[in-house]
């Protein structure tokens, strides 16, 4: 039987870096804010796990300079540059050992680099893919195209996802894009990488997200065991698919399916659509939310379009997805996946403000990384301790 771990504080600074402050200053402010919210002192932290991208940050070992900002002096500091959400996974594993009781988890993306697409292109091996000009967006276009043609998905379904999320994002004070768009506007926006249109894509945002995790024991000491007083990690799954796009089934989010299976098994979840109250999904494009519905078992393969058309993932549906507006409204690139967890934690603790889904108790957060969503993680959060 695994131990209990709870998220007792989240903080997020949006549009932070590049705003006349140094990246380190923005991180430091967010860390102080999250510790305050969690009611956990800096002294009480016994592990710090960050996740950062050296190439996004323009710091060859980004954790060096940022460690001080995290309060890392004299502490146990690790960094997981594979994905923002992996910092949370590692902190959770450490707390499960019983040897640690309070963890700080932080990820960020500044916008100090001239072009994120160039950074992404550097993820290509130099032999077969680099010269093709492949980057996240192009790989997501390949994937959306494969999905669309495999299941005959109408572009309108993706446009409806974008319209739903942008309407939600308009209510989120932390979002970069706060103006709603209609499905027609989405369909009329220019093609960026077929079949992806401009309004189906996330913006480039800057931001820092921080979470404080504690052991069940520490949560009790902090008086956070009551319903809605903390977000308990009930299931976690993460997985990495093949790098080679040519040998993957691009029409499916394979590693998301296996990450979800692991997380559901751990949380004892059998009917996610019925049992979950809210989901925060990492939309690398609007099409990917449809694909995520299927990989997460909200519907059968190829049925994602029907789910959005029926409004079942809308604000009044059975399972509202991305009430925060999701990554189509705010996208601090490397940290976006961890922002989904922060939003889910806000939902199950009733702190989501204007984005709150009434009575949300059980939430799913999804995070994605790499070309054509190569890596995926799933977190099941509950507002109840047991």
């Amino acid at each position, binding site marked *: 039987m695994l131990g209990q771990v709870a998220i007792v504080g989240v903080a997020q600074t949006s549009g932070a870096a590049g705003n006349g402050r140094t990246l380190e200053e923005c991180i430091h402010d967010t860390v102080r804010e999250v510790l305050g919210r969690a009611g956990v002192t800096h002294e009480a932290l016994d592990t710090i796990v960050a996740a950062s991208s050296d190439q996004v940050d323009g710091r060859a070992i980004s954790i060096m300079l940022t*460690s*001080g900002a995290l309060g890392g002096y004299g502490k146990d500091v690790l960094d997981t540059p*594979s994905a923002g959400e*992996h910092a949370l996974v590692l902190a959770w*594993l450490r707390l499960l050992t019983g040897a640690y009781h309070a963890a700080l988890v932080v990820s960020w993306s500044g916008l100090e680099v001239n072009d994120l697409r160039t950074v992404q292109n*550097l993820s290509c*091996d*130099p032999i077969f893919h680099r010269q093709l000009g492949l980057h996240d967006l192009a790989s997501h276009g390949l994937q959306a195209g494969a999905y669309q043609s495999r299941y005959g998905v109408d572009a309108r379904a993706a446009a409806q996802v974008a319209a739903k999320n942008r309407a939600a994002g308009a209510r989120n004070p932390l979002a970069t894009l706060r103006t709603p768009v209609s499905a027609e506007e989405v369909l009329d926006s220019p093609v960026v990488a077929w079949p992806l249109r401009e309004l189906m894509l996330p913006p480039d945002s800057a931001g820092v997200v921080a979470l404080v995790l504690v052991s069940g024991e520490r949560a009790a000491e902090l008086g956070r065991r009551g319903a809605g007083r903390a977000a308990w990690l009930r299931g976690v799954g993460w997985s990495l698919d093949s790098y080679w796009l040519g040998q993957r089934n691009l029409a499916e989010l394979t590693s998301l399916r296996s990450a979800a299976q692991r997380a559901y098994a751990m949380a004892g979840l059998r009917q996610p659509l019925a049992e979950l109250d809210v989901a925060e999904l990492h939309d690398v494009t609007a099409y990917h939310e449809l694909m995520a519905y299927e990989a997460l078992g909200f519907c059968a393969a190829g049925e994602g379009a029907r789910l959005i058309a029926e409004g079942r993932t809308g604000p009044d549906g059975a399972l509202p997805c991305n009430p925060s507006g999701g990554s189509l409204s705010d996208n601090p690139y490397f940290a976006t996946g961890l922002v989904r967890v922060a939003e889910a934690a806000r939902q199950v603790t009733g702190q989501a403000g204007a984005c709150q889904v009434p009575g949300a108790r059980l939430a799913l957060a999804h995070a994605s990384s790499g070309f054509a969503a190569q890596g995926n993680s799933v977190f099941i959060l509950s507002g109840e301790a047991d």
Partner: protein
Amino acid sequence: MAMRRVAIIGSGQSRFRFRRDDATYAELVREGVRLALEDAGIGIERIGAVVYALAPDALIGVSNAERWGAEAVGVDKPMMRLNTGGATGISAVQAGFYHIASGLFDVVLVAGADKVGECGHAQVVLNKIWDPLYERALPLNAINMLSLSAVRYMAKYGMTEEHMAMTTVKNRHNAARNPNAHLRDEVTLQQVLDSPTLCWPIKRLDACPQSSGGAAVVLASEEVARKLCPRPAWVRGVGNCAESYFMGDRMGPKAPQDHADATALGHSFQAAYRMAGLSRPAEEIDVAELYAPFSNTEYHAIDATGVCAKGQSVRLMERGHFELDGPFPVNPSGGTQCTNPIAVTAMLRVIEAALQVMHKAGEHQVPDVQTAIASGNGGDHQFFGTMVLSSDPG
């Protein structure tokens, strides 16, 4: 709740060289993985999760190259990567340890590789680790950062250039007995002293090479380890401690620590000893494999283990105390000074400690080892990971 026991049951490492043009990065990772799985006597299907060790991406010229390397460790498994600079390799093994100690997994693979030779000169990349506001233009790099430490250690404890050379002579002697080491030619004290100055007082033969190759470790839960491995290396303690970032903060009368020393490494060892239940390191530890990329840094690393008082390592080195057949052998593999594939350098420290405990170190085996320690340093002498391995599960 008692933590689950975890052991190293297998390891693999390339024969390291300056360049490996015959293989891509991902293929080098595979090389280490194949050797480690063979050593552990298991197939990839037994691996429940993977931890990847990759330090600055720029050294191999591929961003998030762990994604490219996914194939090498088995697709559709839980995988994450660690990066704490030079400490990455030991941080990754520690992360693997947590995967199992948490109760979630039974067998975990920790793997990585480096092709430092492909980035041209590592120090050009390593200039970009510094603060872009105050330090990068100077220009700092990993060599002069530790020259600055050497100068302070000399002033504080009387270390000389000859003392630095003694470390190299010892480590090259050991590396000559380690078929996987990169620099395997023995050298004399005079050769070290006569080698060209890089950043005074560090000379070419005080410095580590840039190496290419792969390495991997297989960790297992107690149940699996007992089944598969006749003499596993039990992970008895892990420690981690970070220093402040700015080197200038480690100088002057009000500094809480000194850039001459490795204070946070000392704290890290203390944490690992506490977990392992060690209180008299000099008597309880049989061999130490310490991350020391330059000859001078071996001294403050030894001091930090607590086997002697600060600065006393210099006197003990004069008397052969740390040699392969001495009372407290340090870096029986030849250490980082002889082999430095940055992403996995600190993993090699763990692998060597494990080989010593498992009595599989061949010509560089220290007799009768039961308990060994390993360390890794990363950042600007900033992140310090440590481990205690033992043949006794405790």
